[in-house]
């Protein structure tokens, strides 16, 4: 969270902390049995479950298959939401009229937590992919619109006036002044969208799905298989982290003037 002043030390402390935590985990579970393995898996049990799902599969597929399934849906939902949300937010930022027109709808949608769309999505679209994508769409849509909107609105009016004075048309102003200026906030919105998408997908799959990491969680719960629950959670965390990092990479490549 904070850049260490001496570049070495934060790293070292971090490694030590993680190592200590792992040791503690091992000690409390396998070694002494203080924590009942029914409540929390020990390292060997964790590894066994990992091996099982990676090689033989569990709840309908191998770890890879389940992860890819989840990722596929997240990316689909996220992309659709962004492709609609960012231009919409842009338009609303550009024109107060459009904003006024669409405001009521937003006021209605915004307070509803994305997860709350799950039951409705299931009623409308069943337990398949479609329902998940719909829920993710709602999760990702709102942050991208709002952040794009804010990104457009916070642009220094002087820059726009300067462009107009030089004879730029609306199109040019939008493309060459507003779009680049709003880009950082747009990416913030995308980052929030992606995180929301991922957490929402996990929840949606947990409630009802045929395949995916959330389904693994749900079946492992049903089977009372804590080690598998842990495997699923760790995979979810890692996948989420990787996606966020990837987005950050892309952001750095696109916004080169920062």
């Amino acid at each position, binding site marked *: *969270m*904070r850049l*260490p002043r001496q570049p070495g*030390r*934060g790293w070292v*402390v*971090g*490694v030590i*902390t*993680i190592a200590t935590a792992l040791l503690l985990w091992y000690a409390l579970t396998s070694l002494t049995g203080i924590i009942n393995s*029914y*409540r929390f898996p020990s390292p060997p049990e964790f590894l066994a479950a990992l091996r099982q799902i990676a090689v033989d599969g569990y709840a309908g597929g191998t770890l890879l298959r389940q992860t890819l399934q989840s990722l596929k849906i997240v990316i689909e939902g996220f992309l659709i939401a962004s492709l609609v949300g960012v231009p919409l937010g842009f338009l*609303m930022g550009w024109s*107060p*009229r459009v*904003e*006024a*027109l*669409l*405001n*009521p*709808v*937003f006021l*209605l949608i915004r*307070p*509803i*937590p*994305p*997860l*709350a*769309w799950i*039951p*409705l999505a*299931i*009623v*409308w679209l069943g337990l398949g992919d479609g329902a998940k994508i719909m829920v993710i769409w709602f999760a990702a849509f709102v942050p991208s619109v709002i952040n794009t909107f804010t990104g457009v*609105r*916070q*642009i220094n*009016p002087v820059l726009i*006036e300067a462009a107009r004075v030089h004879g730029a048309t609306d199109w040019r*102003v939008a493309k060459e002044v507003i779009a680049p200026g709003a880009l950082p906030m747009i990416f913030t919105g995308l980052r929030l969208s992606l995180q929301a998408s991922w*957490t929402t997908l*996990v*929840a949606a799959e947990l*409630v009802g799905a045929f395949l995916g990491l*959330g389904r693994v*969680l*749900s079946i492992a*719960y049903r089977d009372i298989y*804590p080690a598998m*629950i842990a495997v*699923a*959670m760790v995979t*979810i*965390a*890692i996948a*989420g*982290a990787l996606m*966020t990092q990837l987005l950050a990479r892309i952001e750095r490549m696109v916004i080169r003037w920062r």
Partner: protein
Amino acid sequence: MALTQDPRPTTRWAATPSSGELVCLSLGGAVIFFGSWQLIAMSGLVSQYVLPSPLTVLAQIYQLEAEPFAGFLLHQHLLSSLERFLLGFLLAAVLGIPLGLIMGRYRMLDEIVTPLFEAYRYVAPLAWVPFAALWFGTGIGGPVMVIFTGAFAPCVINAYRGAQFVERYLIEAAQTLGASNLRIMREVLLPGALPSIVAGLRVSAGLGWQSLIGAELIVVSSGLGYVMVQGQSNLAPDIVMSAMLVIGVIGLCIDVALREAERWLSRRWGRA
């Protein structure tokens, strides 16, 4: 928060419309939206069992309060949900804020806790549901734990950032006036970080409320989320949508309350 509450003047690229015009447009937008919805539902183009009309949804709210559904009246479900939310949220605040403050002040602790914190942060709150259910069964502990995991991170992060932003000379002034470390934490860091903390509480409340609903979709037998799930299994979208409406309204109220707290704070202490 409505988008038009943005206080900055609109930029002058599109001809600035009058506020009267904007109000009309907003009203118009609302009318178009709800009007079309009502018409489509009434026309029979789509089955009643798929898209209930707005009026049906509102009527259903009344109905849920008049007759028990899934075991309780609407207000009992609501209280159930609120109870869990408040417990989880308060727990997150009471544990998270001091942790964030201490991490902000003492770098050593920051370095120790951060890797664990980051690892926890990437786990979606709802992924904790199976363990919560395993550990707490069907009691209140399960949902409270899930809410806690959702609400905890923003509390810590915002307290941490707030503590870091407290000007160093304020801490030094307190030290030269003989204050103990505990006193500095309570009377300098906490108030200094308060604007950031309250902003964090807003985010935290939002995430906590959402985690609550998620948990209630799975591991409970009362509450607004439970109402939705029951409505779903009965294929009754009108019930689902009524519950969604109530959930949205409550969530909005919580957010507005916290936003007012933020405003009051900055007015009283004169800080941005």
